């Protein structure tokens, strides 16, 4: 095996195996009952049941759908708004305090209101995910615009760029290297929040699966849902990291 692949694949796998072994060992100590702390084998059996009858897929798709919609809405609003506020300094002064005021309020605090406004179903969950990813994205976009080298604006003036050209060919590409990590972080936050959001007003999703399994006292299913959340989280992160490979972004990592 090539040593790079060995390091990338084998070493992380080793850590997973070690944690699995520790888990097995702990379960066998019998500190908690098997019902309260299922062994890896019991969890695997439960995972098989959930996978075979399609429950796992159904709930994963439901969660991914909510995250996708809420997250895209956040990206769609936060980045253009951040670019506007980054450029328009009066607007920035005007809105900065209110943004900083709203930002630390946990999206979970909005749950009662979200349920009142949007009823039950997908919409309150999507709203919470939107809130969770909107503010980090907005703030880092504004910051990124603030930190664009002024030289680039002078070049734009020298070559008679229109406002639209300045946005499309200077501001947008200039902020990408710092917006991409923000995209990654806020996707992680969105995925964190979806589970909590699904514990309140819906009858599907991995968060619901956890709640429902707890009510049925099936801790093996609870653990399986947690494992699924972790695995999908890794995959989402992998996917979004591919954006860093874009050629016109690579200058930012210097």
């Amino acid at each position, binding site marked *: 095996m090539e040593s790079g692949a060995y390091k990338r694949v084998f070493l992380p796998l080793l850590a997973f195996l070690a944690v699995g072994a520790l888990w097995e060992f702990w379960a066998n100590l019998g500190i908690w009952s098997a019902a309260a702390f299922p062994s890896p084998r019991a969890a695997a059996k439960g995972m098989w049941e959930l996978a075979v009858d399609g429950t796992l897929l159904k709930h994963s798709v439901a969660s991914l759908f909510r995250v996708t919609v809420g997250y895209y809405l956040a990206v769609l609003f936060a980045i253009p708004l951040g670019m506007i506020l980054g450029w328009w300094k009066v607007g920035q002064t005007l809105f900065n305090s209110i943004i900083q005021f709203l930002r630390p309020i946990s999206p979970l605090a909005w749950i009662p209101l979200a349920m009142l406004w949007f009823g039950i179903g997908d919409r309150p969950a999507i709203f919470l995910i939107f809130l969770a990813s909107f503010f980090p994205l907005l703030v880092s976009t504004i910051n990124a615009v603030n930190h664009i080298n002024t*030289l*680039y604006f*002078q*070049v734009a*003036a*020298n*070559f*008679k760029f229109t406002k639209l050209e300045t946005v499309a*060919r*200077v501001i947008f*590409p*200039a902020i*990408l290297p710092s917006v991409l990590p923000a995209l990654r972080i806020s996707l992680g936050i969105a995925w964190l929040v979806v589970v909590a959001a699904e514990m309140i007003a819906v009858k599907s999703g991995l968060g619901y699966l956890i709640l429902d399994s707890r009510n049925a006292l099936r801790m093996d299913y609870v653990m399986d849902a947690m494992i699924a959340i972790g695995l999908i989280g890794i995959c989402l992160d992998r996917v979004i990291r591919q954006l860093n490979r874009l*050629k*016109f*972004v*690579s*200058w*930012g990592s*210097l």
Partner: protein
Amino acid sequence: MGHVLIEGLYKQFVERRSARRVLNGDVDLHAGDYLPVLDNIDLEIRNGELVCILGPSGCGKSTLARIIAGFEVATSGKVLIDGKEVQGPSSDNIFVFQHTALLPWMTVWENVALGLRHMKDKQKMTERVQEYVDVVNLTGFEHHYPHQLSGGMQRRAELARALVVNPEVLFMDEPFAGLDFLTRLKMREEVINMHEFLRKTIVFITHDIDEAMAMGDRVVVFTDRPARVKLDVNIDSPHPRDFACDTALEGIRKEVYAELGVHHAL
């Protein structure tokens, strides 16, 4: 064309602390709140001339270049380029900045093509971009990004981007700062060759006396801030110049050094 006429140019900055008073509406400023930078500059730059503007660091020579190029506004006085008063930046006068100002998210090709983006005839545009990429010896690096190039190559790419629009006046504000000594010497040579070939008006800002002596058709020496013209000499010696053999040149060089307060130049 490329004739620059500077008349009675005066520039003062409002000091930062006083600027806050202006913002607060308390605009009663006193003499000490102003920082005079340029003091009554009159200068005529002839068409096709390579003028080196020399002066101590921070004397205001960059400010002068920025005013001529339209990036800053003078407190009083005016600048005319080919008889037209400068109102703001224009793609007829391209500024080559102190630090590389290539847009890092664009390839060399895209950077050089910036000034030609409105050309209707794309075939012609491609030819012209290629021509100037070749002129600055970057053939084969068209699709590299700036960070993949050496400092000297970055400067050359920026030079190509400036020249491709066929500007009336080229401003170069200490363009070789940050390059190693050898690359500096080579870039000097390239700019001299380019100038002999294209005969563009070049306003070249530097604090390197030997650089000015080696390059300029004319050297203008500024005093310390607020800048006034202290010395204005034409240099007729042909390129490449040799200080050791050219007694007239050596005389001018000594004089320039003396004007800048150095009496034992090596």
